[in-house]
Each structure stands twice: as structure tokens, then as C-alpha cells.
């Protein structure tokens, strides 16, 4: 009789745990399934987490170590800002086409355009871009950005200058073409957020 009661009690606990699991799973799904403010083209709906507020901006500091000349590659400096309320890990970027060019400026603040070195004449593009817009390029090392934080990233040799770029582009700063997208995940448990300035790249 006592053994029967113990068995029934154990069965009840297992059943209750199962109910709890189902309830919590449903609640968690409901709580994380908000897809807020994704711009058209994002296809995240139906998954359990939405990463919406990530921006990548051009910055003049730190200065690019590798500067371009005709036929060479150079560094690109960006700031990635995570406006989400949770850490995010950026794993890849999406590039515009290989015929989308950077615009030249006379100063690092990108305030005054360089005559003769525009986005139609500079022939400066993202390295490894292709004829297809939105091609994805995996970062050598994923970058984790804390909630509401920013990270400066030097993308080593991820800009390319054509062998026929005009001499007007000499001694010039470039506003690179807009990236079309990025791939990101919510950061895994225990992942340390990157801080300060980091170096990264894609190489294919």
C-alpha cells in the first residue's frame, strides 16, 4: 500500500514537471517571439528571438593601418552598435555588388567630397564582393556586442582599389558602399562581449 502511494507520488511529480515544462516553454515562446521593426527582407518571423537594432557606421578613428593604392587592398574601420536589450554576436556581413563603389572625401570626417573621386569613378569596393547583391561573407571571428553597447572594428584589407582608380583618389578618405545586411545571433550563455577596438576580416 505504501509502495503504491510512493509510486503514485512519483508519477504525479513527473507529470507535474511535464506540465511545468510545457507551460514554461509556451510562455517563453510567447515572450520571445516578438518580431519588432525588422525592415523588409528580413526573414526572422517564426523564430524565437528577434534582433532588430544593429547599426554599422563609418568612423575615422582608429585610422586604417593599411591604406590603398591602385591594385591594393586596405582596411575599413566601422563601429557596430547593438541597440537590443540582449548581447548579440555578429557572424557575417552581406555586401552590395562589386560595381558599387565608395565615394571619396578630402578629410577623415567625410565632410567634403573629393573632386574626380566619386562613387561612380573611384573604383573602390568591398573586397570579395560579387556580381550579386547581398552576398554573405563570414567573419574570421564572431564579434559579440553587449546590450546597448558599441564596438570599433578594423576590417583588415576588406576594401579593394582597382588598378585603374584615378589619381584624383590619391590621399583620399572613402565612405564605403552601404552593407546590405548582417547575420547575427543572440549571444550564447557565457560568451564574453567584445569591448574597445578589435580587428577582424573576411577572406572569401
Amino acid at each position, binding site marked *: 500500500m505504501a509502495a503504491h502511494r510512493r509510486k503514485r507520488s512519483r508519477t504525479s511529480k513527473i507529470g507535474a514537471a511535464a506540465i511545468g515544462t510545457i507551460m514554461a516553454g509556451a510562455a517563453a515562446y510567447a515572450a520571445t517571439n516578438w518580431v519588432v521593426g525588422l525592415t523588409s527582407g528580413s526573414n526572422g518571423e517564426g523564430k524565437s528571438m528577434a534582433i532588430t537594432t544593429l547599426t554599422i*557606421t*563609418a568612423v575615422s578613428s582608429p585610422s586604417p593601418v593599411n591604406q590603398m593604392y591602385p591594385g591594393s587592398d586596405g582596411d575599413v574601420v566601422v563601429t557596430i552598435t547593438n541597440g537590443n536589450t540582449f548581447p548579440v554576436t555578429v557572424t557575417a556581413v552581406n555586401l552590395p555588388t562589386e560595381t558599387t563603389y565608395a565615394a571619396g572625401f578630402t578629410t577623415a570626417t567625410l565632410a567634403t567630397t573629393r573632386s574626380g573621386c566619386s562613387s561612380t569613378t573611384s573604383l573602390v569596393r568591398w573586397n570579395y564582393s560579387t556580381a550579386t547583391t547581398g552576398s554573405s561573407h563570414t567573419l574570421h571571428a564572431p564579434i559579440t556586442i553587449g546590450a546597448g553597447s558599441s564596438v570599433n572594428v578594423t576590417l583588415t584589407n576588406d576594401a579593394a582599389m582597382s588598378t585603374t582608380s584615378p589619381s584624383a583618389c*590619391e590621399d583620399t578618405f572613402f565612405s564605403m558602399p552601404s552593407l546590405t545586411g548582417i547575420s547575427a545571433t543572440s549571444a550564447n550563455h557565457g560568451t564574453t562581449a567584445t569591448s574597445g577596438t578589435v580587428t577582424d576580416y573576411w577572406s572569401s
Partner: protein
Amino acid sequence: VHGRGRALVTAIVSGAVLASLATTCLAASDTWPVTLTPGNNGEAAAVGLTVTGVTVACATQAGQVTVSWDPIDVPAGYEVWQETGASTTAPYVTVASDLATDTWTSTALGPGTYRFAVSAGSWHSWTSMLSTPTTAVVVEPTPPTCSVG
């Protein structure tokens, strides 16, 4: 009955916590493509060809001078320019071009005062401005002697 109820509540809460953790960890593994609006970009820079560190010295051979400069860090050829005369406004003329080295020695110069400057030309028609001129070098006629400054 009271004990069984407490056990039931404990089991439900435990299950909920475990499931919550599992759900969050699973969510963390999802990769999201995020479309960026125009303006999300970066900044790069192109070199400015500038030749610095140009100096002149008297060479071992009478009447000859050696011009040296700091190499620039891109593939380039160099041109040496010479100005003749006491004035600093006389035009510079090219006396050597397509040099792959960072030094050049003249032939024997006639008597006079000379200044030199250097420019760099990279591939595909990129060129630098003339460097800051060297100090003057004076070549005396008999016997040919050279002095700088």
C-alpha cells in the same frame, strides 16, 4: 495531502525553470539575417604619395653629388629634379627618372649652385608633388670642389 501538494508545486516550478533555460539556450543558437538600411558602412583611406627626408651630399668624385630620400611604402619609381642657380625660384628640371632605389648620384656638375627635389610615381599615373628641396650645394670650378649649405 499537504506534503503532496507542496511536492507538486515544487515539481512544476522546477520543470518551468528547466524549460525556460532550455528555450533560451536554443534561441541563442538561431542565426538571424538582419537587413541594414542605406548608410550602414565603413571608412577606408588611400595613400598620399609624399617623398620626405631628401638630403644632398658631396660624392667622392669631384663635382658629383649624391641625393638620398626615404622610400615610400608602396611600389613606386622616383624622379630627381634639379634647380640651377642661386635663386630658389628657378624652375626644376628632371635629371633622373624611373629610379627603383632611394639614392642617386649625379655626373660631374659644372660650377654653380644647385638644389634638388624628388617626386614619386606609383603605378597607373599616380604621382606625388615635389618634395621639399634640399639645401643648396655649391660646386667650385678649380679644382672642382663641392660644399653643402
